[in-house]
């Protein structure tokens, strides 16, 4: 128990004293996961709404695959990304291994199924009359699509948030293709793992607390986007 309180104290100390190394790791974690989630949203949202709104043979199989993809183990994704970016891999010459870009690409693979599956669920759950009404009112294809998105925005925010949570605390990929290099690819999650493996448990807890604080502020931000429109 003592260790946990020490961890909180340490977290406060790090935040207020502005421990440069930790704060830079925070910032790095934040931009890596934001970029990965933004890219995943750009890819996953159209995929999700396409799966929710069109009927074709094999659709349900794709949906199942995407949903199962939400449980993709990060170490598996890390391994695949590693094989791709390794010196002997197909993208070896790009020299992306052990850079933040490799982490972003790995996290993107992780986040796309999450965004796609949850937004598919959210859009599918819309009353079919939303689409019908939009159509009576003369909305075109794109306009109808934006209508679904706006109607299902709470579900979609949840999708983005889930993906973000997964990326923010992501360890396997960041370790394997990021390499946890001090000052370059060390994220908060890998730093937490490192502190714990060093036996600095309270510092590990402190990092965890900081990670939670970041998660909290991002949740608040996303909840603000998804808030119900009181005027309507």
């Amino acid at each position, binding site marked *: 128990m003592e260790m946990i309180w020490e961890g909180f104290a340490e977290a406060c100390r790090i935040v207020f004293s502005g421990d440069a190394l930790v704060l830079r790791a925070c910032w790095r974690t934040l931009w890596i996961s934001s970029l990965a989630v933004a890219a995943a949203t750009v890819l996953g949202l159209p995929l999700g709404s396409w799966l929710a709104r069109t*009927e074709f043979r094999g659709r349900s199989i794709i949906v*199942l695959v995407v*949903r199962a993809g939400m449980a993709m183990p990060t170490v598996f994704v890390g391994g695949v990304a590693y094989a791709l970016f*390794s*010196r002997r891999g197909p993208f070896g010459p790009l020299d992306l*291994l*052990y850079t933040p870009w490799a982490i972003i690409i790995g996290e993107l693979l992780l986040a796309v199924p999450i965004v796609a*599956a*949850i937004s*598919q*669920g*959210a859009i*599918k*759950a*819309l*009353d*079919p*009359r*939303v*689409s*019908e*009404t*939009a*159509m*009576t*009112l*003369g*909305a*075109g*294809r794109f*306009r*109808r699509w*934006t*209508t679904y998105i*706006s*109607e*299902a*925005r*709470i*579900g979609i925010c*949840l999708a983005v948030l889930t993906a973000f949570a997964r990326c923010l605390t992501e360890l396997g990929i960041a*370790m394997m293709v990021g*390499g*946890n*290099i*001090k*000052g*370059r690819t*060390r994220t908060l999650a*890998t*730093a937490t793992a*490192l502190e*714990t*493996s*060093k*036996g600095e*448990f309270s510092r590990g807890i402190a990092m965890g607390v900081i990670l939670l604080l970041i998660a909290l502020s991002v949740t608040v931000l996303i909840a603000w986007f998804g808030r*119900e*429109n009181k005027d*309507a």
Partner: protein
Amino acid sequence: MFIRKYFHGLWPCLPHQAGLKSRTLRRDSTQDVLRMKMIVSKRSGCLRGNEINRPAGRCRLAHVSTVNNPFSQAALRLPQALKNALPSAVSCGTYRHVLACLIIFGSGFLYGCGASDMPLTASGGVLRLATTTSTHDSGLLDEIIPEFEHKHNVRVDIVAAGTGRALKLGEAGDVDVVLVHAREEEEAFLASGHATRREDVMFNTFEILGPPDDPAQIRNLFAGESLQKIARQKEKFISRGDDSGTHKREQKIWQTSGGFTLWSEYLETGQGMASTLMMAHEKQAYVLVDRGTYLRFQRKIELVPLAATDDSLRNPYGVLNVNPAKSSAIKAELSQKMCDFLISPITQQRIKQFSINGESLFFPLHLD
């Protein structure tokens, strides 16, 4: 009533009333559009019969800019969204939902209770041994520990961690025996009363590996000199940076050979030996590695041992038995037996015989 709720705010906007610009809408699904038209016409009579019978793809509809306002509340059903995000087999009915959850969690629970990959009955209890990842990864313990388990009818749980963490685990009384390779820390650990006994067990060696073309020209130099030369020429060097025994050794070599100054190609990974070695291989960098890990990875990497082995690269292992006064859970007698076992002639002989790819790895210290 649903319809009224939905279309409530919509009536003023319908084409013939609002006189808005009409346009042709492309298809969604024929039936959908027809159904919708009938709903609308039944309610308001605003569409004429001949329009209902028109092909759906070309019916005339109004374009209104505020499409999304009137029906926003009805669509925002979060639980529904969540429910649909679950696999459909689970969400198709409340009972089935509950049943599926029960099956999933129940089977997990049963599996957790019943399954154990240890064939032993372990009536003698469990002994926890903390050791370094490099020792655990070498496979030596898998070779010698089962004998101890059978002899004393006990299960040995091995916790693999860096030296720093292994010692911390001992300090907290969470393990019974600690087998590490950091002599000074071990002696400090003993001196501060965290352990009651310390024995030298064996030693292995470290190697400084580098790319075969050896850009820093360190072949056959001694360890300290090699590292300093790598630093001077600003070549790539990968360090564990995790307070492990290997990392501590690296720091010690820096200190004794004239200090350390950071350069841009010096990378700290904060990871285990195997990952760090693979990173060095990927980056074609120099790296300090224990011999065991090197031998295991020999065939997977292009790096070769370069520096000459001197005393600063010798790596003695010690076993510590954690002070039983720390916790009533510590098995004092068994941990004593473990120490005796590790330094017994039979085990020492086995340590000597243990080899990887035909090369021996550990050199016993109690076998004269």
